[in-house]
Structures are given as structure tokens and as C-alpha cells.
């Protein structure tokens, strides 16, 4: 018995060592992804965020055709960086809607004027309520909503140039 107890600390340490090593080897993953992927889009109704686009509500999805839902804000710097990619996706025929988080109409208008407007509809989420309801933890993020109104995929962070083909692929397969 005493023998066991004497070697127990070393055994425990080896266990911890393994745990630390596994922690170091694993790539650092600080992303909090939404747990709603695979589930239906929550119900929401939002007022218009841009002067020249209609408001957005959840009923606009589940039309049979997959759509891209972009979560952005005019005060968000990476959102400006992903604007060209969104425009490219629009060119490729993707239907994109957006939700502007903690924003105001004049600022959204200025942003869209400056960086281009790929959106069909833009909803205004002044108090992050829909953002939280979606399980989104920051801006920018993009969700692929399939034809039946289910969340098929969540892309955290801005869409880079090399992400575009992958997004197009996923949109195609999410019928």
C-alpha cells in the first residue's frame, strides 16, 4: 500500500504532463462556434438598416434556395476587408442578406456606399439580440442557410479570398 502511494505522485505528474503536451500540440482554438449549426434558423424580425434595402426577417429564408447570411457592422474593420469577397460571391449568383450589429442607419449607408453593397436585404440589430439568438460571438461571421431554413454552416471571421470556392461549394451542396 505504501509503495503505491509513494509512486502515485509521479504517476499523477505523468498524467498531467501528457495533458499539457496535448494542450500544446493542439492548435490554439479560441473560436466559439454556434451550436445551432444543423438546426433551424431562429425566428426574428428586424427593421431596415440601409436606406436602399428592405428589412430582414427569418421568413425570407426557407425559400428552397440556399442563402448566405452575413453578420457585420459598419464599425468593424475586418468587415471592410471581406467586402470584395462578398461582392465576388454576389457576382457568382449567391443571394446574400445581412444583419448589422449595434449600428445606425447613417453609418450603415456610409459603409455600404464606401465598400459596395452585395446584400439583398439588411436588418438592424441594435442590441445584438438576433446575434445572440444565432449563437454568433462576434463580427464578421457568415451563415449558410439551406433551402429548408436550416443553418448548414457557420464561417467565423472574415471571408478570405481562398475561402470563396469553399463557400460556393457548401452553398451548392446545401439544397
Amino acid at each position: 500500500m505504501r509503495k503505491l502511494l509513494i509512486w502515485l505522485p509521479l504517476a499523477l505528474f505523468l498524467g498531467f504532463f501528457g495533458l499539457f503536451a496535448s494542450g500544446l500540440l493542439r492548435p490554439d482554438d479560441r473560436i466559439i462556434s454556434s451550436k445551432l449549426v444543423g438546426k433551424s434558423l431562429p425566428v426574428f424580425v428586424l427593421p431596415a438598416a440601409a436606406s436602399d434595402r428592405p428589412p430582414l426577417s427569418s421568413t425570407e429564408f426557407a425559400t428552397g434556395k440556399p442563402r448566405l447570411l452575413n453578420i457585420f457592422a459598419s464599425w468593424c474593420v475586418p468587415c471592410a476587408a471581406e467586402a470584395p469577397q462578398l461582392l465576388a460571391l454576389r457576382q457568382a449568383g449567391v443571394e446574400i442578406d445581412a444583419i448589422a450589429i449595434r449600428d445606425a442607419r447613417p453609418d450603415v449607408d456610409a459603409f455600404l456606399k464606401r465598400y459596395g453593397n452585395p446584400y439583398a436585404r439588411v436588418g438592424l440589430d441594435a442590441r445584438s439580440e438576433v446575434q445572440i439568438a444565432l449563437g454568433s460571438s462576434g463580427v464578421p461571421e457568415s451563415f449558410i442557410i439551406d433551402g429548408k431554413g436550416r443553418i448548414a454552416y457557420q464561417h467565423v471571421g472574415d471571408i478570405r479570398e481562398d475561402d470563396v470556392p469553399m463557400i460556393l461549394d457548401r452553398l451548392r451542396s446545401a439544397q
Partner: protein
Amino acid sequence: MRVVVALLALMLSAPVFAQSALPPAPYADRQIEDPALEKKARTLMETIRCLTCQSQSIADSNASMAGDLRSQIRERIMAGEQPEHIRAWLIERYGDWVSYEPTAEPILWPLWAAPLVLLGLGLLLLRGRIKRKRRS
């Protein structure tokens, strides 16, 4: 002169902070009138993790999203919702990570078993020592 410098600095420093310029949500920093409800809300807030911070609860965070969450929690509790229901709703969206209060999931059972196991080990050690004394 110092005041002028300060004012100038304030004006120039604003664009550096890439954050929403909107004011905080109504109940982000406003307590519920009813102290019992406010206590319920506060207890819940202290156990919900801030999504955009390093490692803080939303009760301790300056971040705007934390403020929005606080406001939502207070409003929902005023509307009569139970704190545990709100917590479950948040866990449904963000996973166990968002709750500092460990859930009843199987993956957390060892965490609850740990004190019993360690105390048991301690008792064993103590009993072993006493038995040895009795024997000698």
C-alpha cells in the same frame, strides 16, 4: 493648456477604438427595481461567460456584447423567465463553454467526483497511518 490637450486627445482617440458607438442597452447598467429579481439576475450574470473577453463573466465586463447580454437577462427575468431557463437557452446556442456553472453533462462528472475521490484518498492515508500505529 492641459484641458485643451486633453480635449484634443479625446477627439482624436475615438476612431482608434473599433467598437460600436451606440449607447449601452437599456438594462445593461440599470438594476431591476425589485431587489429579489435583481439578485436572481445578478447571480445568473456572474456565471455567464463573456464571449468577447479573455476570461470574465458578463457581470464584470465592459464589452458592449456583455452589456447587451446583461440587458437581455434583466429584461427576461423581469418578464418572469427563470434564470435556469435563460442559462439553458444560452447553452443551446453557445455550448457549455458559456456557463461557468458546470452543467450536469457526463463529461463534467469527474469534476464533481474529484473532491470525493481526493477526500477519500486522504482518509485512506490517515487510516493507513493509524492502523500502522495500532500495530506497532
